[in-house]
Each structure stands twice: as structure tokens, then as C-alpha cells.
């Protein structure tokens, strides 16, 4: 049973089609990398998968045991967050809110948050302020928050943007371990070399679907050449 099945999916803003007729599936344990140039519809697809915008046509079908709010989302960081006064613990705990509303966090939510902080190696930082952390540490915090929301599926929006090379490799390693533990990954990225190396499947968007298939066959395609060639010239 697939976790997510998208069939002939199209999205439009104000009548202008930005994603046209894409079809792909995500199996449990998969590691799908979504690549494409700026404005190719990657962010739109993410919003669609999160249920924030409705498709113009086509369908997104979630697997039987996956609820719409059970997608662990790792968003791109916004300027608001960079100087937001919040402790690591507060941020990670807020991931657990999709388990139903209670005025206070339950013991179960707290335990889950603690376990995820340990898993991400940030438990010792839990009383630190989020804005005082390094970029890599902040990503670990947001990752722990996403895991507190769910361990079924992680949806990551350009997670390595703005990280230094060391922190980038560090993040890829973390994600690889999570995937090996059975967490399904969908990652939107500009980093094609690592996408091919780390991912199991590649979805290449350019408004429409240019490539969808196994990662190891992708580099030989003309789609990959167009993106890589473009990237090297810039």
C-alpha cells in the first residue's frame, strides 16, 4: 500500500497553471528527492501535499493509515524565526499538537519530544534559545519537531540551504539514518549531486514532470543534463 499516490496532479494560481499533470507515488520507506529550477512548482507541490492548497485537477491519495496532519514538515526558515525568543524544548514540543488539543502538554507528548531531542543530539541544548543556535543546530531542532508530529513521513523543503558544507553532510547523514529506521522521506532540494547519492527516487519538475524514476538512472537523462548544465554555468 503506497503512502501517497498522486495522479495527473495540476495546481494553478489565479488561473495560471504552475504544476501541470504530474503523477508519482511514494512507498513506505522511500526516499524521494524533488528537484527542479526556481519556479518549477516544487513549493506548490509541497503545499499541495500538506493540504494547504487544493489541486486544480487530479488527485492526491493518502495511504490508509496516513492522516493529512501526520506529515512531518520541515519548512524553509523564515526571517521571523531567526530572532524568535523560544527555547529548543518549546519548539520541539509544538510538533506534538496534532495529537489532539489539550490545554497542557501530556506526559506522552513530553516523552516523545524528549526522545526526539535525544535522537537528534540536541537534548543538552533544550533550555537554550533557538535564535542562539547555529544553522545546523536549528535544522536539528526543526527536524526533531517534525518527528514529534509523526515518524511516518518527513517532508523537507530545501533543508540544506544556507548550511555550511560540514553541517550539510551532517544533515544528510541524519536523514539517511532516519530513512534506515523506516521514516519515509520526501526532500525538495537544489543539491542534485547529493539528491542522486542519497535518494532512492528522483522527481524532476519544470512546471511539468521531466523525470520520475530511480535515482541511479537519473544522471544519464537529458533532464538531469539540462539542470546540471545550467547549474554549472551560473
Amino acid at each position: 500500500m503506497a503512502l501517497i499516490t498522486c495522479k495527473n496532479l495540476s495546481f494553478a494560481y489565479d488561473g495560471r497553471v504552475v504544476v501541470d499533470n504530474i503523477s508519482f507515488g511514494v512507498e513506505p520507506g522511500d526516499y524521494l528527492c524533488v528537484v527542479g529550477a526556481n519556479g518549477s512548482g516544487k513549493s506548490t507541490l509541497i503545499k499541495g501535499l500538506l493540504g494547504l492548497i487544493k489541486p486544480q485537477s487530479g488527485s492526491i491519495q493518502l495511504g490508509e493509515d496516513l492522516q493529512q496532519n501526520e506529515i512531518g514538515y520541515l519548512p524553509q526558515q523564515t526571517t521571523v524565526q531567526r530572532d524568535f525568543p523560544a527555547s529548543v524544548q518549546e519548539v520541539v514540543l509544538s510538533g506534538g499538537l496534532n495529537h489532539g488539543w489539550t490545554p497542557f502538554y501530556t506526559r506522552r507528548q513530553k516523552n516523545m519530544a524528549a526522545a526526539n531531542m535525544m535522537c537528534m543530539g540536541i537534548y543538552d541544548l533544550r533550555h537554550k534559545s533557538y535564535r542562539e543556535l547555529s544553522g545546523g543546530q536549528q535544522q536539528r531542532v526543526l527536524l526533531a519537531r517534525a518527528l514529534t508530529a509523526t515518524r511516518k513521513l518527513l517532508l523537507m523543503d530545501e533543508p540544506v540551504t544556507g548550511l555550511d558544507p560540514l553541517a550539510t553532510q551532517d544533515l544528510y547523514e541524519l536523514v539517511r539514518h532516519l530513512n534506515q529506521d523506516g521514516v519515509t522521506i520526501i526532500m525538495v532540494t537544489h543539491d542534485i549531486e547529493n539528491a542522486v547519492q542519497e535518494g532512492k527516487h528522483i522527481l524532476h519538475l519544470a512546471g511539468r514532470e521531466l523525470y520520475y524514476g530511480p535515482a541511479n538512472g537519473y544522471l544519464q537523462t537529458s533532464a538531469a543534463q539540462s539542470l546540471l548544465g545550467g547549474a554549472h554555468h551560473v
Partner: protein
Amino acid sequence: MFETLAHMFSYPFMVRALLVGCCIALCSALLGVSLVLKRFSMIGDSLSHVGFGALAVATALNWAPMQLCLPVVTLAAFLLLRITESGRIKGDSALALISTSSLAIGVIAVSITTGLNTDINNYLFGSILAMSAQDAHWAVLLCIVVLALFILFYHNIFTVTFDETFARATGIRAGIYNMLIALLTALTIVLGMRMMGALLISALIIFPALTSMRVCKSFFSVVLCTAAVAIFSLLCGLICSYVWSTPAGASVVAVNLLMFGLFSLLGKLLRR
């Protein structure tokens, strides 16, 4: 010192002003934490200008001020939120547009009816005598509602403020929280405006939150500290205003400014 205080509390209007002031300061400070962090602080400022316009028109038409003020400011709050969210006109220009037009309408309304007299002065800079017993009831009620909201939905408010997209993705209806905060801000401004003044009320929203952010590191401590700073500044401001016969609204803002300076200094020292 104690004699002065005792003397001050012997006036019923002073007691009322303190009560209403504390409620308004607490409400606006708590709402302000979310507004400031979401970069919406100027919404408070615009709403108070709209409030001034509505108040002036209501007086010109001989209506009860609340009857016109409340719906107009509420409507403006929803409108402003829409504009900032859709991004058609850049948020800050839209706010300036609405502020200045309401101010202009208000000034014209006042000058046609009574001429530019002490009334307009009271609207713009507030008057401690403007509070009625009814206002006091409303202020206490509003305060209870805002406190209840903050206690019951604290975690959701945090999540919506910190990361709205994530909040929406986990099934929190972020739009409702934004609306609720805008609505309560509108109420707070309408109630506090006549005491603090249309030009000064937004300071109560912005200052305490910014002040506590100089020092506090977690959201929870920011919220607690903001509430404390707001009430302390209000009490100090009103006492100063009584002792030195300075305008109440302006004195409260001046104390807030002083607190902001102190906390900035403290924050710098702590970070060393």
C-alpha cells in the same frame, strides 16, 4: 510617599483609571507578543487611528462612541489582516494609507462640529477622566477573555506565531487564531483609546513585548515578563502622572521607554 498614594486612591476616577489601565495594558501586552513577533505591530497603530476617526465621526453625529467605533475598528482589523496576508499592496504602505485617511476623516469631522478644541486633544492624547463605569466593566470582561484565551490555547498561539505553515500543516486552523488576535486587539484599542489616546495606545502593544525580548530567551518567559512589565509601567506611569500632573497616556509611554532602555542595557550585559 504612602500619603500621596492614599490620597491618589481616594479619588474614584483614579481607582477606575488604574483598574481599566491594568486590564488594557495586560491585554495589549499579551496580544502584542504575538503581533510583534509576526511583524504585525503596526496593525495596532493603524487600528488606533481608525478608532480616532470613528470616535470623531460618532461624536459629530451625536452617537454613543462605542456603537460606531467597535464595528468600524473590528472591520478594519479584518481588512488589515487580509491585506497583509494577500500581499496585494505592500503591508506597510497599506497601513499608512489607512492610518492617515482615518486621521484626516476624524479631524474634518471634529472641526466641522465643534472646532479644534480640547475634545480633539483628549482623543489624540487621552484623558484619565474619560473612563466611565461601563468602560470599566468592559475592560475587566475583555481582560478575562484574553487571559482565558492565552491560558487555554497558549501552545497553539505559540505554534501559529512561530511557524504558521507548520501549524497549518499539523491541522491547526491558523486563520482563526489570526482573526481572533486581530479582533481582540481591536477591542482592546477601542476600550483603551480614550484613556491612553489614539496616538499613544499602540505603545502598550509594542513596548512590553519588545522590552522583555531584550532579556528573555524562551517564549514562556517572554509572555510572563511582558505581562509584568506592562502592569508595572502602567502603575508607575499613572503615579508619575498624578504626582507631576503630566498627561496620563504620555507618562505611561515614557515609563515604557525607560523600561525598554533598562532591559536593553541588561540584555547587553548578560550577553557579555
